[in-house]
């Protein structure tokens, strides 16, 4: 079955949503409870064709002011086409036919896959980030990420409370003198800047925290 992540027609989208709802009824309460008890930033579950990832909201704790020279976080969104809802239930259709696998994180972050796990198993795939309060509804958050490796300069719209449209310029990342635009991933309201002006950032790094604008048509 071809990978449909890039060509999502209405039929595929509603099939996905139905699948997500089925998994959500069974798995999400267990996953959320697990996330709360473990000192990890992210959980990933694979079952059949599906891979479900739960992530703590990125707007808190160590991602603020994160420097490009830090060890890369496993939970970097780095999606240039659309924003994310970190901390939300995120379902990715894995490559068809791949068996359920258990992914375990070792001390240095390497992942080892072992076969034979029956049914969905919880596993930590990201480095732990302590101190985050998992309460609230993190699925409302969106993130504008860096389009390049360079130095971040927020623009005039990157101020809390500003209403922006998808594609609006929120700032730039200066890559070797060439400004690369940081854009709003969706119609949203700016919450705040995650990374200070003048900070060196890497490609895909989380820069600006937004939340979906209310009463916007999907």
């Amino acid at each position, binding site marked *: 079955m071809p990978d449909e992540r890039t060509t999502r027609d209405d039929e595929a989208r509603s099939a996905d949503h139905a699948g997500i709802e089925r998994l959500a009824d069974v798995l999400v309460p267990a996953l959320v409870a697990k996330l709360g008890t473990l000192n990890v930033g992210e959980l990933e579950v694979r079952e059949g064709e599906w891979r479900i990832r739960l992530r703590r909201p990125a707007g808190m704790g160590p991602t603020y002011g994160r420097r*490009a*020279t830090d*060890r*890369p976080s*496993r939970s*970097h969104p*780095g999606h*240039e086409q659309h924003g994310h809802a970190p901390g939300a239930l995120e379902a990715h259709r894995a*490559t068809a036919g*791949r068996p359920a*696998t258990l*992914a375990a994180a070792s001390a*240095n*972050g*390497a*992942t*080892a*896959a072992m*076969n034979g796990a029956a049914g969905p198993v919880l596993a930590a795939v990201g480095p732990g980030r302590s101190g985050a309060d998992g309460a609230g509804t993190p699925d409302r958050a969106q993130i504008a990420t860096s389009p*390049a*490796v*360079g*130095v971040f300069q927020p623009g005039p719209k990157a101020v809390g409370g500003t209403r922006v449209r998808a594609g609006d310029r929120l700032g730039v990342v200066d*890559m*070797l003198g*060439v400004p690369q635009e940081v854009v709003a991933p969706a119609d949203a309201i700016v919450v705040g800047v995650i990374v200070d002006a003048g900070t*060196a*950032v*890497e*490609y*895909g*790094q989380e820069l600006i925290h937004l939340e979906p604008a209310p009463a916007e048509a999907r």
Partner: protein
Amino acid sequence: MFRKILIANRGEIALRILRACRTLGVEAVVAYSEADRDSLPVQLAEEAICIGPADARRSYLSAPAVISAAIVTGSDAIHPGYGFLSEDETFAEVVRAHDLTFIGPPPEVLDRFASKEGTRRLLGDYGLPTIPGSRGMLRDDEHALEEAERIGYPVLIKPSAGGGGKGMRMVRTPRELESAIKVCRSEAKSAFGDDSLYLEKWLEDNRHVEVQVAVDRYGHGVHLGERDCSVQRRHQKILEEAPTPALSPAARAELCELAVRAVVEAGYENVGTLEFLVDAKGDFYFIEINCRIQVEHPVTEMLTGIDLVATQIRIAAGEPLGFSQADVRPRGHAIEFRINAEDPEHEFRPGAGVVEGYHAPGGPGIRMDSHLYPGYEVPPFYDSLLGKLVAWGPDRETAIARGRAALDELVVDGIVTNVEIHKALLANEMFLEGRMTTNLLDRVGSAAFLAAAART
């Protein structure tokens, strides 16, 4: 010596460079694309920085992304590995313009040796016998036909801008030439962004022998012996060994001495490799120079004990070579098997996927240079090289025996690899007798080759 080096490459060579940096006590930061976020060099490095999406044109091939990453991480040098930007003289110049050091030949040296056809003339002037070839790039089909007549069929069409077999075709007649040129132009365009082609005389039943050299900034150069890279599939090397069974010790010495003398006099600097074709009579002809570290460098390292990547770094840092030709004492025999994610039973169709099980062989004389680990997902965006298994022995027979045992011990589960073709090579009479030529595999095709090996 540099304080920090940005490794602008991926996979097994990024890991190799990281190891050399650690040996030298130099900090390293690995630049990676999104597709390589979980790769082994990224995980092992103390520092890593994501420079772009999976598309190499926006990451590993993006000079601004690579240089920007070097600047923001406080690196003072960039190691380009092989492929990607490793022989791009424009990139090397921009690196220097930002007060960083490109680990390789300086830009003006890269420029001097940039044109394959110009380099043949240059090194020909410095005493190397060279392969007959076209004068200049092929302007159009008419020019190509004229040059082919002058050189004499069969001829090999080659792209000016790159290697690895892409854009290369051997043709025997004017009609074949005309149709092949179109294919070669489009392959070269998509692989290197440049569809310039030239012609070389094709020698039937030729051997490919290359000479490893190292020249410091002060003009002191040595050769580190030769390697035989005759075992190829569609002009792509899959197995390399040293010393070459194709030449006598006296002929090998003559070849290596000619090569290093020519390259020093022509002003080369840093580590490099001169490639030659050897015909059935044992005469050799220079074809091209590779101004970078090569995939098969471990073969030479196993024979000489000299760390070629560390040597590159030291030369680029302005250190003298520190050893003379007399200090280079190759010992024994080494064979490298390129382990690729390719299916030899289906025309070497490349594959991707999760490596569910991985075990590297070991024991006396066995070296495995690979970025694989259990659970690693091989991305579909880059070349299919998974690793290099190198077997050394005091003689060729022992190296072969150890190689055979190591190939049996190697485990790569979850994706298809070309291990079977290597086992078939080690059962092939021509290979075992050291008489292999570059058409060993292509003459019969891989399926027939495997079938013949299965019958022995």
